[in-house]
């Protein structure tokens, strides 16, 4: 199912910065992957850099990737090629691009290459209805314009902006603002959360929605007249580091309009704004 990705390299630059003992290499490539599935999938799992996704019209996933590799020495630079790379898999169902290799053993290997990093800036165009699941970790933002399919997007140290959505599944950051804007009233449940950052949820007038809010330190402002909603206590059970953990929580509930899908909205240090689409 794998395709060898033949890439056109627009530019290759390798230079040694003697002052910083750094070796860098930058290149940009583009590739289009035809898709046949009714709801194709896009998976991007990045570490350093931005992910930007837009909706096109063609039945293909078009990718442009700007790659900048750097290492403290030539030796580590060569090692970085084995430990940090972009693994691309594509078929008629969609495209998966993962920094590292698509198994669980690679990211620990990255730690062997101390001081090495590879920034990937993704620019992707997908067909309408694509199921989008994108993430990055640091020094980057997530910017997605949805187009019919459900969207999952996550960042660790940076913002997440998802707009023109029809439905979402999970939108989250750890240290960054999260902005989620719907083109229509959502029909599916969704989780939106960040630890340190504001959350802005924009929905059209007339939207029916229930939301479970867990906003610890911050204000909650709505452009809609909301009704308080009593939610049942929620109990989650998991096994973590050899112990059984039970988490019990009761979120503050709100209802927009006559209610609808349930959104879980969590922020520890940040405000929540619920806005009406202009």
């Amino acid at each position, binding site marked *: *199912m794998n395709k060898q990705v033949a890439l056109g390299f627009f530019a290759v630059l390798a230079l040694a910065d003697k002052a910083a003992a750094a070796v860098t290499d930058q290149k940009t490539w583009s590739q289009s992957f035809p898709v046949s599935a009714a709801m194709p999938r896009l*998976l991007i*799992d990045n570490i350093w850099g931005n992910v930007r996704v837009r909706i096109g019209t063609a039945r293909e996933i078009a990718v442009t990737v700007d790659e900048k590799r750097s290492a403290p020495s030539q030796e580590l630079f060569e090692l970085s090629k084995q430990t940090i790379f972009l693994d691309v*898999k*594509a*078929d008629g*169902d*969609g*495209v*998966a691009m*993962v920094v590292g290799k*698509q*198994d*669980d053993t690679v990211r620990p290997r990255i730690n062997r290459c101390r001081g090495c990093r590879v920034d990937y800036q993704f620019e992707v165009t997908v067909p309408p209805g694509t199921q989008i*699941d994108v993430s990055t970790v640091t020094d980057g933002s997530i910017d997605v314009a949805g187009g019919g399919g459900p969207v*999952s997007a996550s960042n660790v140290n940076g913002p997440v902006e998802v707009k023109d959505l029809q439905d979402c*599944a*999970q939108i989250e950051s750890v240290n960054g603002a999260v902005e989620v804007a719907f083109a229509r009233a959502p029909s599916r*449940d*969704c*989780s939106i959360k960040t630890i340190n950052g504001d959350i802005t949820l924009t929905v059209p007038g007339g939207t029916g929605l*229930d939301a*479970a*809010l*867990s*906003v*610890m330190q911050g204000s*909650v*402002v*709505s*452009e*809609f*007249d*909301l*009704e*308080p*909603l*009593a*939610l*049942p*206590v*929620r*109990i989650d059970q998991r096994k973590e580091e*050899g*112990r*059984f*953990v*039970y*988490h*019990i*929580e*009761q*979120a*503050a*509930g*709100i*209802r927009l309009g006559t209610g609808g*899908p*349930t959104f*879980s909205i969590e922020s520890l240090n940040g405000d929540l704004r619920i806005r009406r689409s202009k």
Partner: protein
Amino acid sequence: MNTAKHFTHTALALTALLGAAAAFGQAKNATPVPATAQAQPETITIPLSRPGEPMSLNIDILSAHIEVIGEERKDVAVTVTLSSGRRKIVTPSGPKMLSGGGSGLEISERDNRVSIESEAPPTNRITIVARVPRRATLNLSTVNEGEIIVRDVVGDLELENINGPITATNITGSVIAESVNNPIAVGLAGVVAGGATSLSSLNGDITLTLPASAKAELHLDTSRGEMVSDFELDVKPSKPRIERNESRGGVSVRMEDVIVATLNGGGPVIRVKTLNGTIKIAQSGR
């Protein structure tokens, strides 16, 4: 795309969907209600790693009513009532208050050690009633607006409640109980050799209840209160204890005037100390 990574993502997506489905199901049970609605109690049964063996329970929550009851059982049943948080939301028609959203609680178990913690702010009061096996070591702590109640436990207890009362009845084991501004009442079913029992409060009365046959050496200290006993105490002659400490060029002198009395010929030491309260040594069944 059929890779381990993708399986992971698929599994995560399924988990998310299941979670979302659960939340959706919960939301369907939800109804608009006044913001002052109180949460209903929820009971969780925690299996122990080694059922039938002694266990320990640690609870450390800023504002909590904590009640622990020893029973003939091999698991732990925790009934939790979360407080109604008061979350304000600003809307076009003015601010509205929402219930919930204020507090969460985490219970964990490993190797027969059960821990209950919360990161809820101190304004949110949580009520916990834990039913534990009778043989249990307890370490319970709260600060505000709470009460600690323990009964029918065989084991060592450490109980701390800064601004609330502590009541422990039918305890077989050592008890260390500390409060600052409220009374302490401890009833021992027996005095255990080798255990260190100490009850201290700054501004509260202390009542220690013992069986008629209990053997103990009582060290009683109240600066501005009185002492009352159901027992005939054999008071030993003692002198005020004076400690002198020199540090940083200064000298501090501390004087303690402790009454030492034996009960039924003496036994393990039990210390009882309050600054502004009464000490009562009561006999069980009286």
